[in-house]
């Protein structure tokens, strides 16, 4: 009896240590998307000023795996991840679409792409942020991988780093392309 009582703190400690060990790499602020394996929401967004093509759900259902990157000129991490989106467009043979999220001025997105380069096949301008909400966006940048039938297969929340690009996004795209 006495011995088993003495063991309790030890067991509790081991259990807690185990839980902490499992969660040490987990970012608790990342909320997993409920839209995984669900069809992308219906949307139709106008183009950036001066561009001729906007973005709609039809672009995501053309039988090809595609990437949808949510970005904004006011978003500092978006600036940081932009080179990785360019790398993605070079290294993965898939169309990359941009969702320009909640610019104060439509020209802001245009200037941003002129300055940093435009890796997107088409960009839709979501001034109201409603399409973002339909996609469950809560912190830009976010990057969705969508299969040829328009099903959302993966979502990365936060800036894409070279590690995320190489270890997560590229393998996931390759896997979906089969």
């Amino acid at each position, binding site marked *: 009896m006495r011995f088993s009582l003495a063991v309790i703190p030890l067991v509790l400690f081991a259990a807690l240590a185990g839980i902490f060990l499992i969660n040490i790499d987990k970012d608790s*602020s990342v*909320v*997993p*998307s*409920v*839209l995984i394996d669900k069809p992308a929401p219906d949307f139709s967004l106008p183009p950036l000023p001066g561009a001729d093509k906007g973005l709609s759900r039809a672009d995501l259902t053309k039988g090809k795996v595609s990437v949808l990157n949510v970005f904004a000129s006011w978003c500092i991490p978006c600036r940081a991840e932009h080179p990785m989106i360019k790398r993605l467009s070079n290294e993965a043979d898939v169309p990359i679409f941009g969702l320009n999220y*909640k610019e104060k001025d439509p020209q802001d997105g245009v200037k941003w792409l002129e300055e940093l380069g435009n890796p997107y096949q088409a960009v839709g301008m979501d001034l*109201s*942020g*409603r399409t973002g*909400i*339909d*996609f*469950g966006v*809560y*912190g830009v940048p976010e990057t969705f991988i969508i299969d040829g039938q328009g099903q959302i297969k993966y979502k990365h929340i936060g800036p894409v780093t070279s590690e995320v690009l190489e270890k997560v996004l590229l393998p996931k795209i390759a896997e979906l392309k089969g």
Partner: protein
Amino acid sequence: MNRPFLILLGVIGVTVPLLLSSPAHAVNPDEILSNTVLEERARDISQELRCLVCQNQSIDDSDADLARDLRVLVRERLVAGDTDQQVIDYIVARYGDYVLLNPPLKPETYVLWASPIVLAILALIAVAAFYRRKQRESGAKPDKLSKDEQTRLNEILETAQKDGSK
């Protein structure tokens, strides 16, 4: 003044103002609906929905841009004729159960809901076991000294008396 009284006074001094004060809300005047019934419902719904940017505030309390957009969205759905549950389902369909500050009871959350009850029961068992053992220990000790102990005590007292009378 005694200590328990001071502690009680301190507890009252902290909690009563907290209970009386209403928390600050982030709802901007331009978001408020002219229909007071709908606005009241919108406020109730907003207080149940978590702001995903700040995570421990409701969208009713949060100043975040997304919280504002969601507040406006909630009001739009209400004006369009949605029930409260339809509005909540609309947001949950996009952001998941995580947006609910009051988590629903379902298989994934059984552990969450059951753990306080289980812990309370375990604590009660532990307290009961502690007192039962204490009782048993005090019951095990006889009130009177045993014969051997009495003899030994007498010896000690005698020696002490002898020493004292020297």
